């Protein structure tokens, strides 16, 4: 009976992972099959041309800008907020409220963030349609992800580390910085990777706040078009699936690069602390 149950559960585990991997292979495979033909040096590094045949370099640059700016703002805020919630706050009303707020933020459709950003950052704060307005909007979108994953990571750090450090007459800040954060790093990193995914994958919130100008951005206050917005427009208006998929390939490569360097960084950090 018990053995049977074990077999069934084990079977389900295998089935699930096979399903997940199959889906992964199918999606990535589909994108590569559809888009590979378009990939060329000119396509990646060329300037955009509205009459066709141009490249996507401006969108690549814009995408990287939005990732960097959003993360530079959201990561510290998110981590510090999580630190407050886990390490400082008395587990009372305020914490519950903050937690509820962050959870609710995750479920709001991005188009609403986009409209909010368009009214608040673009119009009210007079940033205009710009990379900075989009990045701030994206910051609000990924904050909950970073806060929650960091909180979880902090929860898994043994209490004995905190005690051990504080008993040596260190401050909470020193303890956090030297002991707690390093051992929570893997969890935090996976939150950041998820956030990058969210930033990169976003379209509605970006085209309403950064617009769709297909030129190399001059400054953070220029409007610009990200890769995803490009593939969105292309799908939506011309139905050029090949082009959208080719953009997807470039995105996958970019994300792969980021994820690999993130893992390398975390390995390095671990070496610094563990070895």
């Amino acid at each position, binding site marked *: 009976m018990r053995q049977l149950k074990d077999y069934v559960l084990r079977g389900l585990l295998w089935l699930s992972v096979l399903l997940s991997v199959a889906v992964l292979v199918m999606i990535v495979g589909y994108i590569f099959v559809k888009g590979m033909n378009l990939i060329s040096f000119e396509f990646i590094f060329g*300037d955009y041309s*509205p009459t066709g045949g141009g490249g996507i370099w401006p969108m690549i640059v814009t995408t990287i800008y939005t990732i960097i700016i959003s993360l530079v703002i959201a990561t510290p805020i998110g981590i510090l907020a999580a630190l407050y919630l886990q390490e400082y706050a008395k587990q009372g009303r305020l914490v519950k409220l903050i937690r509820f707020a962050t959870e609710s933020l995750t479920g709001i459709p991005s188009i609403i963030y986009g409209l909010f950003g368009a009214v608040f950052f673009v119009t009210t704060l007079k940033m205009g349609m710009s990379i900075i307005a989009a990045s701030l909007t994206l910051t609000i979108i990924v904050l909950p992800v970073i806060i929650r994953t960091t909180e979880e990571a902090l929860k898994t750090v043994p209490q004995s580390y905190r005690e051990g450090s504080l008993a040596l007459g260190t401050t909470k800040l020193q303890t956090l910085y030297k002991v707690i954060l390093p051992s929570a790093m893997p969890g935090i990193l996976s939150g950041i990777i998820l956030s990058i995914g969210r930033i990169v994958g976003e379209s509605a919130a970006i*085209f309403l706040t950064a*617009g*769709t100008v297909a*030129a190399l951005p001059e400054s953070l206050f220029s409007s610009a078009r990200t890769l995803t917005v490009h593939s969105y427009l292309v799908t*939506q208006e*011309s139905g050029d699936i090949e082009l959208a998929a080719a953009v997807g390939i470039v995105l996958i490569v970019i994300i792969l690069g980021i994820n690999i360097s993130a893992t390398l960084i975390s390995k390095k950090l671990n070496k610094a602390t563990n070895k």
Partner: protein
Amino acid sequence: DSSTQASGNNGSTIAISGSTSVGPLAEKLAAKYSEQDNANIEINQIGSSAGITNAINGVSEIGMSSRDLKEEEQASGLQEVVIAYDGIVVVTHPTNQVKNLTLEQVKQIFTGEVTNWKELGGDDMEIVVVSREDGSGSRDAFQEIVDYSSGELVKSSIIASGNGNIKTTVANNKHAVGFISFEYIDETISTIDINGVKATAENVLEQNYKLSRPFLFVYKEGKLTDAGQNFIDFILSEDGQRIAAEAGAIPVK
């Protein structure tokens, strides 16, 4: 190319935003225009309403719209210029036998009176209607000319946003019928003649083909800069209209 000249020009940037169907045409016009005049033109394709709103509250100088202005929008002092016309064509899956319909038959299809292709001389299979979303300029124009209201649209119809999505949907389903702009016609879908008339720019200009609607530029009265005015003049010039025609739109004259 826009990135290099942008920093060097006399500082006049023309900010344009709005309809995603007007956008590609406007981009092409802007690219040609900036070859002769080193103006910096920013085009944001974010939807007609967002563009109109931007024109009203000054985020953009010019708004692009593929629909007519609402009363309250006109009341807030917007001016409109028709920069071109856009032909609308009924499309089906390439394997569909039906190649010609009357305007009345089109109406019957979209209002659900006819639900099987065999009633129209095709194979025995269910009709799947694909329409644009409520508020779309193409849809407004289409419904007005075919003569049915949004309320009459068959309820089970698929609603797709944008020409591209209609095209992809129809190209992937042999039951489907939808409508798109002329400029997006390609071999993945088959076009339907209306009352025996082919969907071509000439036929629209000679008023033999009825399905078309205007592309608009709108701007706040008195807020149009010289640069903006020059760009509009360029579009309406012979050169500009030729470019529009090459891009698949129908010239104003």
